[in-house]
């Protein structure tokens, strides 16, 4: 898990002003699931991503609350409509205080 927290973002190669753009993002993360011992869940500090935020030029456009019933190495895709060029920033927060960020520059063709 040396790569834990590595964020990959894919955007279309050519974007025109006013297009609705589909962004695909992935973060390397174990997303621990609840362990059980004798049928009872074990209370420990499970490591998983519980919050994802997407901001464009500092303005939040999407926020997600995620649980451990999202797969390991969580993948999210969403759309957004850029009206001006700028920086898309995706932030993943996990329950151990980890903060993983990825950015993608949006330029108009």
């Amino acid at each position, binding site marked *: 898990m040396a790569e834990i927290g590595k964020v990959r973002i894919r955007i279309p190669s050519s974007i025109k002003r006013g297009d609705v753009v589909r962004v695909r993002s992935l973060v390397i993360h174990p997303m621990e699931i*609840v362990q059980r011992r004798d049928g009872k869940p074990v209370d420990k500090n499970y490591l998983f991503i519980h919050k994802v935020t997407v901001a464009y030029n500092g303005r939040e456009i999407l926020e*997600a609350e995620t649980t451990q*019933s*999202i797969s390991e190495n*969580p993948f999210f895709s969403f*759309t957004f409509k850029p009206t001006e060029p700028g920086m898309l920033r995706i932030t993943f927060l996990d329950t151990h205080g980890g903060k993983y960020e990825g950015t993608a520059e949006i330029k108009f063709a």
Partner: protein
Amino acid sequence: MEARREVGRVSRRAVLRVLGLLGVSAAAAPFLAGAPGVAVGQGNLGALQPEEKVDATMQRLFGGRPIKDGSSVIKMELPLIAENGSVVPITVEVQSPMTPASYVKNIYIISDKNRRPLNARFSLTPDMGAASIGANLRLGETTNVRAIAELNDGALLMAKREVKVTVGGCGG
């Protein structure tokens, strides 16, 4: 005066006894958890989604609010048969305008048979241009998956689909 001191002594003894018990349980815990070295006693189990039936989840999230059938406006894409329950791709698209006056505020993804049914909640904004979300789910067994869209005026729309899961992928 004497009585008060007596009280103090008794309570201190009680405190020590409790501490002793905690010490014993803390020593035993690593064996129970099967993972020595893990900090026990500061878990976040209580902060996770509660283990409950899907009806309880719906009640908790939406109260008694009416949920309309949204199968004509919510387009869910997910496999009919998922061989591996630990990675089940889903996309949810709500055909709705995304303007500040009328947009989809939240999309909830709920798997009926998972021990903790809520998979994820997405809070959308009009800047997104379209209400379309994709993610990978973990499904414990063959289950209905529901996508519930909450519009900005508070209306709730739901679509659901069954996914057959060959190998479960969710312990929690």
